[in-house]
Structures are given as C-alpha cells and as structure tokens.
C-alpha cells in the first residue's frame, strides 16, 4: 500500500516537473535557447496568486497564468529578441541575468521571508489503508489534461504545425510564410502559463513561497527535459514523470532520502553518458 501511495505521489510530482519541463523543451526546440529564467516564472506565479487570493482562488490562478504569460512575452521581447543570432553563450548569460533580476525584484517587493499562500485546504482521501492527498489527485489529473491538450494543439492546429516546422528548420519555415517571431512569442506565452500552473500545484503541496523558490524545481525540470531529450515534447513529459517518481521513491527510503537530489542528478549524468541525446532526443547530424 505504501508502495502505491508513493507511486501516485511520484506521478503527481512528476506531472508538475513535466509541465515545467515542457516550457524548457519547447523554448529550446523553437528559439534554440536555454531559458534559465523559466524556473523563476514559477515563483512570480506564486506571488501573483498571493496578490489576488483575497478575491477568490480561481481568479488568483487565472491572474497568475495571465500575468506570467505577459511576463514571458515581455522578457522574450526585451531580453532575448535583440540577441537573436548572437552566440548561444550570450543568450545563456542573459537568461541567467533575467533569473537574478526576477529573484531580486521579488525580494524587494515581498521580502526574503517565506510567505504562506494557502490556496485551498483539500484534505486527504482514505481508501482502506491507502491515503492520498486530494491535491495529489488534482495535480495528477490536471497535468495529464494539460499534456493531452498541448499534444493535440501541437498536432492538430495551424500554430502547432508551424511550431514543429520552426523547430526543425527556421529558415525553410520563414520561406513558407511563417512569422517566426510570432511563433516564438506564442511558445514563451504557453511555457510561462504552464509554469504558473505548476506554482499552483506546488502551493497545494506546501503553501510557502520565497523569492528563490523557482531555482530548484527549475533545475530539476530542466534535468527532466534533458533526460527526455531536449526539444522533444513527449520526451519532456516522460522525463518529468520519471524524475518525479524517482524523487518520491528515494524520499520514501530513510537510508537514501537525504541524497534524493544527488540521486536525481546522477541519473542525468549516467543517462547522458549512455545516450547523450536523451531518451527521445534525435541525434542531430551536422551538415558539412
């Protein structure tokens, strides 16, 4: 029974990682950059919920998603767009800069002490000896819905096909009349909205928020995206869920639970040694 509880908890945590990893992987696939400020969007989402929670939890969640979408678009326009065509290293450094900027702004506005943000107290579901938090179930269901919806959107819509086309060959896509800047903007908007949603589920799990909250889940979701094969949407989903399950099982065993993070990152290192392009990543052949 404990095994099943841990497994469901793992799937649920994995769902959150997958949602964040999707943001990393889509931006990488389409804009060919690593957006290291992506984790901090989660944190911004959390504080936005705090600001709007007095109205109603649902309004607060929607406000967080909308605000993060706008923030994602603005960050892309102001910080990344001028660097299009610049060296990847310059873009990477800029992304790290944006990350620190967001953290510092949050610290100036909300202070560095943790804020308690209780969206809802959902209680625990008990079936026989099995006990699972309702938040876990909601997280799992919502993350599955989000992943299905996103997959349908990418496969069966004009914008989705354009996204695949741009990620594969930006030049050819442009010459087919696709406005690449618009597609990149949409990608950032979707990724940021998913990050905001992830913050909702984190807050349901543990209702505290600090200015540096986004770093660790951000890095873990990035790990998940790399494990799955960065640039691949199903890869990010699988990588996220895998990492979540591993994390929960590692935490459930007292002897190894202090080393949970180390175990997760070691898996990344080992996997990259065996399969450098990730589970579902394609090996890119360089044209000569």
């Amino acid at each position, binding site marked *: 029974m404990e095994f099943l509880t841990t497994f469901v908890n793992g799937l649920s945590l994995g769902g959150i990682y997958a949602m964040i990893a999707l943001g990393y992987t889509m931006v990488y696939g389409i804009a060919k950059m690593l957006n290291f400020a992506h984790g901090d969007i989660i944190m911004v989402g959390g504080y936005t919920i705090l600001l709007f929670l007095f109205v109603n939890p649902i309004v607060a969640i929607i406000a967080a998603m909308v605000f993060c979408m706008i923030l994602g678009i603005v960050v892309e326009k102001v910080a990344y767009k001028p660097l299009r065509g610049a060296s990847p290293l310059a873009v990477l450094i800029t992304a790290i800069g944006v990350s620190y900027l967001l953290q510092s702004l949050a610290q100036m506005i909300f202070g560095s002490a943790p804020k308690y943000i209780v969206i809802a107290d959902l209680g625990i579901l008990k079936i026989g000896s099995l006990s699972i938090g309702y938040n876990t179930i909601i997280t799992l269901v919502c993350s599955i819905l989000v992943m299905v919806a996103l997959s349908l*959107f990418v496969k069966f819509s004009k914008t989705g096909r354009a996204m695949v086309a741009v990620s594969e060959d930006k030049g050819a896509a442009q010459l087919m009349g696709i406005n690449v800047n618009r597609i990149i903007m949409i990608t950032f908007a979707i990724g940021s909205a998913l990050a905001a949603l992830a913050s909702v589920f984190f807050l349901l799990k543990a209702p505290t928020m600090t200015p540096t909250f986004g770093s660790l889940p951000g890095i873990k979701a990035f790990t998940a995206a790399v494990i799955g094969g960065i640039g691949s949407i199903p890869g990010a989903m699988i990588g996220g869920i895998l990492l979540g399950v591993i994390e929960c099982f590692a935490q459930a065993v007292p002897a190894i639970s202090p080393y949970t993070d180390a175990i997760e990152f070691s898996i990344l290192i080992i996997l990259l040694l065996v399969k450098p392009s990730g589970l579902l990543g394609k090996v890119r052949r360089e044209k000569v």
Partner: protein
Amino acid sequence: MAEVKKIYADDGREIVLKADHLCIQFGGLKAVDNVNLEIKKGELYGLIGPNGAGKTTVFNLLTGVYKPTLGRFYLCGEDLTGKTPAEMNKKGIARTFQNIRLFNNLTVIENVMVGLANQIPCNLVQSVFRLPRHKKSEKEYYERALELLKVFNLDEYKDYLAANLPYGKQRKLEIARAMATNPKLLLLDEPAAGMNPNETQELMDVISFIRKEFDITILLIEHDMRLVGGICEKLTVLNFGTELAVGETSEVLNNPEVIKAYIGE
C-alpha cells in the same frame, strides 16, 4: 503603402518579376553584381551558370534571406526589396531548396498544410479553445492539402513521415509545399539534382503540368542541360556573379562564351 504599378513587356504580356541592377557584396566579394531579370507571366525562365556563379544567392535575394546591397526588384509591379522572407512568401514568391529542406518530423500531408497556413483564416484563440471555426478550417486545410497531393501523385503517401519518402518524391513534395502557399512566382533551386533520368523526365512533366494547371511563372536554377534545353524558354547565364548571356534558350546554349564558361577552352 507603396504604389503598385503593373509593368508590361513590349508584346503586352505582364512582367511578373523585374529585377534592376541587383548587387550583393559579402566583405570584398561581389557575389551578385548587377543582375537584371525580366520574367513575363507564365514564362519558364532558367538561371544557369557554373558552380559558385551566384545563382542561389539570387534566389536568396528574391526570397528576402539576404538584402541586396544595391538594386531593387518588383513582383507584379510591387517593390519588394528589403522585405522579410515571411512577407516575401505572403506577397507571392515561393521556393524549393538545393538540398531538400522538408519538415521531416511532419507527415507528407502536414508539410503541405504548413504551406497552406496563410491561405485559410483561423486565429490562435479559435485554435486554443477549439471553437467551431478551428474544426472547419482544419478540415479545409486537410482537404486542400489532399487535393494538392493528388496533383503531384503523392496522395498515397500522405501519412508517411516526409523523411521516409524516396528522394525523387521528396523533391516533388517540396514543390507541392511551395505551391500550397499560392505563389505568383515559383523559384526552383536545382529541382533535378541527384535524380536519375526517369525521375528527371517525370519532374519535367510535373513542371509543365503545374505551369498549365496553376498558370504560374517559374524561375529555375539547373545544371541538367537536358532539362534546361527541354523546358526553359529563356535563360540568363551567370558567371562570377555577373550576367554572361541573356536570351532565348537555344541561342544562349550555343553562345561560344557560355560554352567556354562551362567547359573551358
């Protein structure tokens, strides 16, 4: 909005593409130097020349990949100099590539559907919330793409990934995808490269067919002289970025200067 004034040739036919003194310089290298083109509506025009003569660079200028250092060009009288590739495509210039550049992770029919994107209206909000308009337009994309695939005899391969098509069919699919953007002018960059004689013959038939079917103007780069002599009406020969000869296909191919540039003395 710039004034659009259609240009006509002496014989009264409309001039679809007019390029005036196109030049582009990369550092000290003049890759294209003072190239002029005048292509009439419905014409099949060839651009030939030895390797490195600047043919593909001319295509890159006409599709907005590069901006000309000097010179301007007009599509049906509209000045398009300096527009972005996506805008060029919307104005009616589509192309294929020397090395095939299909979207390999998409299926054959999806490749054509990407090309159709600007032909059928459907905005993002409609797609995200799957409103009725989205469903209707998706159906329309699919049907129009299928029709185009039938024209190119590719409909039986519609659900293959583009990467899994045989080489000759990939070339045809690239033309189909370009045609999906509803161009006025189609640029074909070495469409017969790497094809065997049978495939080349089939390609020539396809090109003649789409010219009639879609009433389109075609500019093509080619090395296969049999293809050039067989279907092109007029030629421009480039050598070291400059025009070596311009005229009817038969006279150009017999021009001693051209023969010299190709096979040496």
